[in-house]
C-alpha cells in the first residue's frame, strides 16, 4: 500500500488485491469496542456522574452507528476502488479517512480488550504461543492500515 496522491481534501492510495481484500474483510468486524468498557471517572461520585455515564454510553453507540454508516457508504455501491490488472486505487476524502482511522482503531482496541487487555509482555507471549492467532492478526491488519493512513496525514 502506498500513497499516490494527496490534496487538501482527497487521498489516493494504491493497494494490491490482497490488501484490498484484507481491508474490506477487517472493516466488516466493526464495531468491536463495547461502549460500556469506557468509564467517565475514577474518583468522582458515581451518583453525581450517573447521568453523564449514561449519556456517554449513548453517545459512543451513536458514534459507532454513524461510523458504520459511513463505512457502508464508502464501500457500498459507488466503491472507492478503481482498479487495473494488478492494483486498485482507493480514493478517500479527508472525512472518510478520519472515519476509517477511528474504525480501525476501534477494532484494534476492542479486539485487545476482548483478549482481557494484555500488557506489552503478555501480548508478546500470546504471539509466541500462537494458540489463538486470529485476534492478533486482526490487530496487526488494523495497525498496518492505520500506519499508512496516519503517514498520509503527516504523522
Amino acid at each position: 500500500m502506498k500513497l499516490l496522491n494527496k490534496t487538501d481534501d482527497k487521498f489516493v492510495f494504491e493497494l494490491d488485491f490482497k490488501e484490498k481484500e484484507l481491508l474490506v474483510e477487517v472493516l466488516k468486524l466493526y464495531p468491536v469496542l463495547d461502549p460500556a468498557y469506557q468509564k467517565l471517572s475514577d474518583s468522582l461520585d458515581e451518583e453525581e456522574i450517573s447521568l453523564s455515564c449514561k449519556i456517554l454510553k449513548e453517545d459512543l453507540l451513536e458514534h459507532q452507528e454513524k461510523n458504520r454508516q459511513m463505512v457502508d457508504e464508502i464501500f457500498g455501491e459507488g466503491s472507492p476502488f478503481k482498479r487495473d490488472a494488478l492494483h486498485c486505487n482507493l480514493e478517500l476524502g479527508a472525512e472518510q479517512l478520519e472515519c476509517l482511522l477511528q474504525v480501525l482503531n476501534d477494532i484494534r482496541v476492542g479486539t485487545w480488550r476482548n483478549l482481557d487487555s494484555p500488557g506489552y509482555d503478555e501480548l508478546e507471549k500470546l504471539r509466541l504461543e500462537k494458540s489463538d492467532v486470529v485476534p492478533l492478526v486482526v490487530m496487526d491488519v488494523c495497525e498496518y492500515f492505520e500506519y499508512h493512513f496516519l503517514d498520509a496525514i503527516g504523522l
Partner: protein
Amino acid sequence: MKSGTLPVKEIDEKSKSKERLEPGYLVICWDDPINLMSYVTHVFQVVFGWAHQKAEYHMLQVHNNGKSVLTRESFERAEHYVHQLQKYGLQATMEKED
C-alpha cells in the same frame, strides 16, 4: 426551619452547581499498550486543536509517565473532552482537582 434559610439539600445542589462551573476538573489520558503513538498525537490535535508539537508532548507524557493531564476545565467541558477522546478509543477520564 428558620425563615429565609435554604434547605440543606438546596444549598448542596447550589454549591455543587457552582462547583461544576469552575475549572476544577482535570481531563486525563491514560497509557495503554494498544493505541499507536502517532494516532494519539493525531487525536489530541483533532480534539483540542493543538499544534503537532504540543500534541506530541502530551502523547509522550502518556507514554513515559503513564498519564497526562491534558486540560483543566469546568465539569461540562471536561465531560465533553472525555467523550471526544473516548470516541477515538483513547482511555481518558475526568477527575476533580485536589
